[in-house]
């Protein structure tokens, strides 16, 4: 062999190539190492990799479920129950966190000394205590202090709060689908109305009271179905029943379990502090000149807020706030600590214990969260691009 002409070539191209090849090799080696070990281990225990177990009968019960479920359903169905419970608590949490966060964020900018200080201390207190401790506090300490079923706190005799949960009236519909379609039809027609109104305003300068028309459609159309569509609604009000000498339960109505209440409370109060900071930063981020310029062309205070300040503040507020929504969704996995049947508890907990399929189940759980996060972040990137100031 001729070594004479062989030289290590450290030109730019190769220098770039070497670290890349090394990285890729390293990753491939790690994956192969893990995969062989996993295969050996699973072979030793007599289990084979596969997702066939999903269709097997789960034979465990779930305390709280939005869809029909019992032990005779499959693991896939249990997964769906867990996923729906996760989504339920996230949606409730996001709803209240947004209301609370926006209120606190605006309060922090209030001229009123007491209000701004109260808002500031709210943020400082709830932001600096671990979320899991707050969940424990609400679940084990605060909600356990509620009265027993027979002495429940009553809200106008239709809703009751006690240590076993919160009992609210149940909606009993007839012909619900008619009502549902009418709501969808109302929303679609509102979109058309607002488009038409915008066109009229842009082309002819005519102002159409869109808000009142939309409200009329939104309430009127579903109301019509009650009159002519055969839709009717009644309420199942919870009632106290005596099971034995000392045991009382509420029947009828919907029971909201304390796990869900404490989880939703803790999640929304904790996340609200971060949203409040985002809102404050967003409003402070709109430069004073913008407000002054708007005032100098004669806009009223309401118009300034609606047309000048908020559109610019929202551009600053929304991206970090979506991030907080995402965090809230991920944090809802702490439900496992207080036995709220979310995806982690049902699937990565009970189902894993029963089947022993650690790799499949943990991967499914992680990929579910990953898919949720990635889809939201893809949506956010699209939204940011759309909303970004287009400079000329």
């Amino acid at each position, binding site marked *: 062999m001729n070594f004479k002409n062989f030289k290590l070539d450290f030109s730019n191209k190769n220098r770039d190539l070497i*670290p890349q090849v090394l990285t*890729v090799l390293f990753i491939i080696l790690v994956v192969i190492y893990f995969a062989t*070990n996993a295969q*050996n281990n699973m072979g030793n225990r007599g289990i084979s990799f596969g997702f066939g177990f999903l269709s097997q009968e789960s034979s465990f019960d779930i305390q709280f479920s939005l869809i029909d479920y019992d032990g005779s359903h499959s693991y896939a169905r249990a997964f769906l129950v867990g996923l729906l419970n996760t989504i339920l608590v996230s949606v409730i949490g996001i709803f209240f966190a947004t209301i609370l966060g926006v209120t606190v964020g605006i309060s922090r900018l209030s001229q009123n000394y007491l209000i701004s200080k109260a808002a500031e201390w709210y943020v400082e207190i709830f932001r600096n*205590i671990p979320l899991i*401790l707050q969940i424990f506090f609400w679940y084990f300490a605060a909600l356990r202090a509620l009265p027993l079923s027979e002495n429940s706190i009553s809200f106008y005799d239709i809703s009751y709060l006690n240590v076993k949960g919160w009992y609210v009236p149940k909606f009993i519909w007839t012909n619900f689908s008619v009502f549902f379609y009418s709501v969808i039809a109302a929303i679609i027609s509102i979109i058309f109305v607002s488009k038409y109104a915008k066109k009229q305003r842009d082309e002819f300068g005519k102002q159409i009271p869109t808000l009142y028309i939309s409200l009329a459609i939104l309430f009127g159309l579903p109301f019509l179905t009650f009159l002519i569509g055969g839709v009717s609604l009644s309420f199942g009000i919870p009632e106290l029943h005596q099971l034995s000498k000392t045991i009382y339960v509420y029947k009828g109505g919907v029971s909201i379990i304390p796990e869900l209440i404490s989880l939703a409370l803790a999640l929304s109060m904790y996340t609200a502090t971060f949203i409040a900071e985002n809102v404050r930063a967003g409003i402070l981020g709109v430069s004073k000149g913008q407000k002054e310029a708007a005032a100098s062309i004669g806009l009223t205070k309401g118009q300034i807020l609606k047309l000048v300040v908020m559109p610019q503040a929202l551009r600053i507020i929304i991206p970090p706030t979506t991030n907080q929504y995402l965090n809230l969704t991920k944090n809802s996995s702490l439900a496992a600590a207080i036995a709220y049947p979310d995806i982690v508890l049902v699937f990565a907990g009970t189902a894993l214990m029963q089947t022993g399929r650690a790799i499949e189940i943990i991967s499914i759980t992680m990929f579910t969260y990953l898919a949720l996060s990635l889809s939201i972040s893809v949506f956010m990137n699209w939204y940011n691009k759309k909303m970004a100031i287009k400079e000329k």
Partner: protein
Amino acid sequence: MNISLIKPNKENLTSFVSVGILLIFIGFFDFLANTFFNWNFTGFLPDRLNYFTPIIFGVIGSYLIRIEFSGNKLLDKINNNFNSSNFNAALSLIVIFVLIKFIPALLNWFIFDADFAGNTKQDCTSDGACWVFVKVWMNRFVYGMYPDAEQWRINTAFFMLFAIVGASFFVPTKFKKYLLLFLLFVYPVIGLKLIAGGDFGLKYIETGAWGGLSLTFIVSAFALILCFPIGMFLALGRRSTLPAIRYSSIGFIELWRGVPLITVLFMSAVMFPMFLPDGTYVDKLIRVLIAITLFEAAYMAEVIRGGLQALPKGQYEAAKSLGMGYWRMHLLIVLPQALKLVIPGIANTFLALVKDTPLIFVVGLLELAGMVNLAKTNPEWLGMAMEGYVFAGLVFWVICYAMSRYSQNLEKKLSTER
């Protein structure tokens, strides 16, 4: 009646202010009599209306004393800060009333009605908090199941840490970097060896016995030291021009950031052992540390990347024009400036790390919150959940609040803006 009579004005300042103050006083009197003496002298009014009388009196009174540029400095100050509109006046009153109603009750529970003396639950006879519970379990809350006789080792390790950190404030700048290197590379080994034992005649203490607040500190300190360099490399990798490195960094970061920590810990507990050769056993604490470190490193990477992006391009170009290579440019020019820009972000990541440590209960390690959970299920101490969680919450709050304050100070001190 003339409308100008109702509109407060400067001419009749004294009469308006005296009537206004009288009304506010009546409102407060009504509220205080209601709260503390159970005496409702507006009870003759219809139901639910008498509930709001203090606020109604207060708001009317506030309206009467709202006089712009009255000439009285105190009055102007009050009007500006608490009473700029009817709505604001009502809000102020509500906040004051809520404070008056709940602060005494809270203080009573916390201090005046609380029990401090004694050793058993039976010593807690009053209505307030039973701090005896915290007192008796204090040792466990701080040291976990670590044997009592060996606890001096944890104390020594932490005392050493504080001594080194304290010393770093006083030694000349020249030696500071050696101290820092010692702290980052030598001290962790010494501290860990001291606490774990096994050599030098120290008894070996398995990590299952570690716990309490000291475990919180150990986990957060180690994860904090380790996640920083990894996060830095990931951030540089994500901004690299080499596609293989960039995409593997992006993949790594997004993978960890997309999943909740609790599933990562589940993974380290049940899935990770499957990936190792049969028979290898990695200690629980080490698995948890690896999981938390990698998780936080991904967040740290995104924070540092923010700093790298915010740095003006001129800095990179200037460094290159001086003939610096990639590493010299980043270590000497780019990173020092980029890191300074993102101090708040780094502090937030560290705070999140400290607040995430209680989650290690998933693998059966009990730090402070976990120990409280354990203590409150002890049959002799049932019903002490409130005291336990309030105590743990206070401890975490003090730690996190102090850290966030410190980071704000650091940010101000290192700021080079003028």
